[in-house]
């Protein structure tokens, strides 16, 4: 891999993790079904278990470096935490479990429970998506999306976007370095100005690149639609062992939901 500038991107991990060669269809089903279970759970227990289990898979099976994973998780985690705090304080009526002492604010029992549930669901759902994003290359996801009958036009746009994000990034980075070389970011005021120029220039470059790409496509008889090759049948073939494990895992989680459904901390 030559371009080290993409070293710390999600994409490089998706292409080089330890679970890369596992059947993509299996990974997608696993992630989506588990996420749904996390969402229908009425107690925070199962979503938390899912979050831990998925994190375990990501860190120890796919062997994603924990530093990168924690950074990746930081944004949704802070968002979820904020939601939790606000819900605990402002939602719900009933017994106060904790007086804050200012503005007569207090944490209520059902507010706290609801907040915790939402927090758990966010983390459970997000780790499922993280598992998918970190272990499955985009290129394979496109073929899965095709199996799921996503409209062709959406898929085409997604494919072009995926490819050209990297060209765009490359261009932006080069321009940024060129500006930095000439001290474009040496003060706050200059930074604003430079960033503005970078943005407007990128827009123009994107336009030109788009035109050039179109000419190149036209040269290869482009007629308005990109025909993709049909994926080999093996893609749908998850394998009976994997399928059994998947069903078993989801059933256990569902039973878990049934038994922990009424679990409340307060």
């Amino acid at each position, binding site marked *: *891999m*030559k*371009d080290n500038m*993409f070293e710390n991107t999600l*994409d*490089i991990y998706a*292409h080089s993790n330890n679970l890369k060669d596992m059947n993509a269809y299996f990974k997608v089903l696993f992630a989506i079904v588990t996420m749904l279970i996390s969402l229908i759970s009425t107690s925070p227990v199962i979503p938390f278990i899912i979050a831990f289990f998925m994190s375990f898979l990501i860190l120890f099976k796919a062997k994603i470096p924990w530093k990168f994973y924690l950074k990746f998780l930081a944004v949704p985690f802070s968002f979820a935490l904020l939601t939790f705090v606000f819900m605990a304080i402002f939602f719900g009526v009933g017994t106060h479990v904790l007086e804050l002492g200012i503005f007569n604010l207090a944490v209520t029992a059902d507010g706290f429970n609801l907040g915790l549930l939402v927090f758990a669901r966010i983390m459970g759902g997000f780790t499922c998506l993280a598992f998918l994003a970190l272990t499955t*290359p*985009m*290129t394979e996801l*496109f073929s899965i999306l095709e199996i799921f009958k996503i409209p062709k036009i959406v898929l085409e746009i997604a*494919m*072009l976007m*995926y*490819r*050209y994000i*990297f*060209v765009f990034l*490359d261009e932006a980075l080069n321009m940024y370095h060129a500006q930095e070389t000439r001290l474009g970011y040496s003060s706050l005021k200059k930074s604003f100005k430079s960033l503005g120029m970078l943005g407007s220039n990128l827009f123009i470059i994107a336009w030109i*690149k788009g035109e*050039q*790409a179109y*000419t*190149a*496509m*036209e*040269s*290869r*008889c*482009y*007629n308005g639609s*990109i*025909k*993709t*090759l*049909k994926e080999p049948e093996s893609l749908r073939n998850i394998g009976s062992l994997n399928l059994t494990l998947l069903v078993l895992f989801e059933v256990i989680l569902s039973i878990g939901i049934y038994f922990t459904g009424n679990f409340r901390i307060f």
Partner: protein
Amino acid sequence: MKVIKTDNITYRYPDGTKALNNVNFSATNGKIVMLMGPNGAGKSTLFLHFNGILRPTSGSLEIDGTPVSYERKDLVKLRQKVGIVFQNPDDQLFAPTVREDVAFGPSNIDLPEEEVKSRVKEALKRVDMEGFEERPPHYLSGGQKKRVAIAGILAMCPKIMVLDEPTSGLDPKGAFQIMRLLCKLNREGITIIIATHDVDIVPIYAHEVYVISEGEILKKGTPKEVFEDKELIRKANLRLPHIAHLFERLQDEDQISFGKSYPLTISEAKKRIVEKTRDNKKFN
């Protein structure tokens, strides 16, 4: 037989500036033809005429013996026959994987799926990029991207392959591999047309050479004929190959002559030097 023949092509940009002025260019079947000119001379503009992307303001062109028709279905046929490899492979490689990119051309001419797949396999094999099928283009090196771009054209089985600056931006090894590949394809029967300002590669690979400057063809001929006219070459913002320049200086500054015309390639120069030193030894 001429596979490409342009007859006094003139092309004006929409704003009126002339990009090409009465260009007469032709390419012989099965040859490597190089179009040599500085930046902005109109090389790329001329190339875009060969597959009907641009339409000449005046003049006409014949591809493979038939005048170009701009009907939709004729254009599809024309573009199969004439494949263009663009200068920047990032403009050309648009698909998320190598395989899908190479498959783009053949799928567009409505070949059956099996045929497309076998063509993709074959094309990647010919450019020596087997095993990269599932890779996204952004994780390939410059030379690899270029070869995938060539495979994308090869998969359409063209008769003529047109390449815009195929060696620009590549390291010496990558550039050499591309040129070797193009020679191989040429031996297999594809007419190769190359735009370049890398004058050192011209005498090594070209059978026919055109010099273009400011939208006009200044000279045509074999590499030897073209480089003989030093003034013209320099007027076109080009230069002699380094090796010829060395022999020019030896002659002009040190009065050491190795024959009337300067050798253009290393092997030719070597031959002349060896001959001359042998002659000298005889006299000593």
